[in-house]
């Protein structure tokens, strides 16, 4: 009756799975930003990081925030540490309140993610780019799209995690 609690507990596999998803998310984000050539990119890595921080806070730690952040800094050719700083803060907030975030409805989670994405993009724009009316429009669109994409990312990663961890 409680077999689902007897998870495989494969340490390397979980780390490998989290790492693979973060790398894939970073590449996907870079590809999309190259194709669309917007000032503001869709922060898929950030959303994947939020998911893992919510789902497996003990396994994720801050290492993946550092790695994903440096990857994006290099890809977007901005100062090393810019994304890392924001990723660390987001990881901290998510891991601090993950028990409350898990209890939220998907739509509430989407609003929370959209809010984080908005803060993240505004910080990046203020410090490493410029703000004008076109960028504000892009910012608005990306925030809305992020809120819409979150349930997809959440559902997909949750499905894969359960399948991977419990073999179901």
């Amino acid at each position: 009756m409680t077999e689902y609690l007897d998870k495989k507990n494969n340490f390397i596999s979980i780390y490998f799975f989290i790492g693979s998803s973060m790398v894939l998310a970073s590449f996907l984000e870079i590809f999309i930003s190259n194709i669309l050539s917007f000032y503001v990119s869709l922060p898929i890595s950030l959303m994947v990081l939020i998911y893992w921080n919510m789902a497996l806070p003990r396994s994720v730690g801050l290492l993946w925030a550092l790695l994903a952040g440096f990857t994006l800094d290099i890809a977007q050719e901005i100062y090393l540490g810019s994304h890392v700083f924001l990723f660390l803060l987001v990881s901290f907030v998510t891991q601090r309140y993950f028990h409350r975030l898990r209890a939220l409805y998907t739509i509430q989670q989407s609003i929370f993610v959209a809010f984080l994405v908005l803060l993240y993009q505004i910080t990046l724009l203020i410090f490493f780019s410029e703000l004008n009316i076109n960028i504000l429009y892009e910012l608005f669109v990306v925030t809305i799209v992020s809120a819409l994409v979150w349930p997809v990312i959440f559902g997909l990663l949750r499905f894969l995690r359960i399948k991977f961890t419990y073999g179901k």
Partner: protein
Amino acid sequence: MFQKEHKQTSISRNAIFTTGSMRASKLLPSLILTFFILFADINFEIGKEIKSMALNLFKPINEVFLNIESFSDQISLFFTSQNKLIKDINDKNQEIDILNFKIMKQNQLKQENRELLLLLGFSENINISKFLIGKVLNKTYFPQESLNILVDTNNFSKEMVAINTDGLVGQVEAVFPNTVKVIPIYAKGNNIPAIIDRTETNIILEGDGKENKFFIKNLKNNSNIQIGDKIFTSGLGEKFPKGYLIGSVKEINASEELSNLDVVVYSSNNFDKGTKILFVSP
């Protein structure tokens, strides 16, 4: 059954225990490290090499989408009648690019030849004993405005002066193994023996340090000088070869209280013009 319920309770208790275990103290070392890297990259550009290496490493991945797009275009065009036409246009565009590059190189050579011809014209002055041609490497502004010139320093002497296509512009400050450092003739405190062309009066010009500006030193109030008078090197003291135009008189300020005239001379020779420098010995 009781054992299973106990296990579930234990897991729940653990879950509560882990809830919010993240503390600011855990975040702090990572934040400090990140700030350190960010500061180092902003101030010392430490990430430049890393970024360049990483971008080269991931270049093929970045180009995957472009290659896929190009491949799909080729596949779709292969089955259309326009395929040959588009291929021909692409080939012609490539030929145009190559020709444009050749034209650009030829223009560059033409410009270089024109510059060398002008410089060789300056070398025909009978008052010079030796000349050499050097290539401008770079210009610096610290601690003073100067040009670094690549030249054969084996046959070089420190007394040489620098001439570009505008005329006399500088003098040698230092000689290094393969390069020389040239400062402008208008460098502050630099004295140039000169002559006023119209009256043939010998004067001493002093550099002001500002671009192309000189003063005439110790010129008496009753001197015969007018605005527009041309000033040439006199060759006296053998510091500069004779007969090179320095500039013309732009301002004359007379004051009854002072015994000397305050005369400003401006040169029209640009210190950093061109890519070649002619060095001549007086």
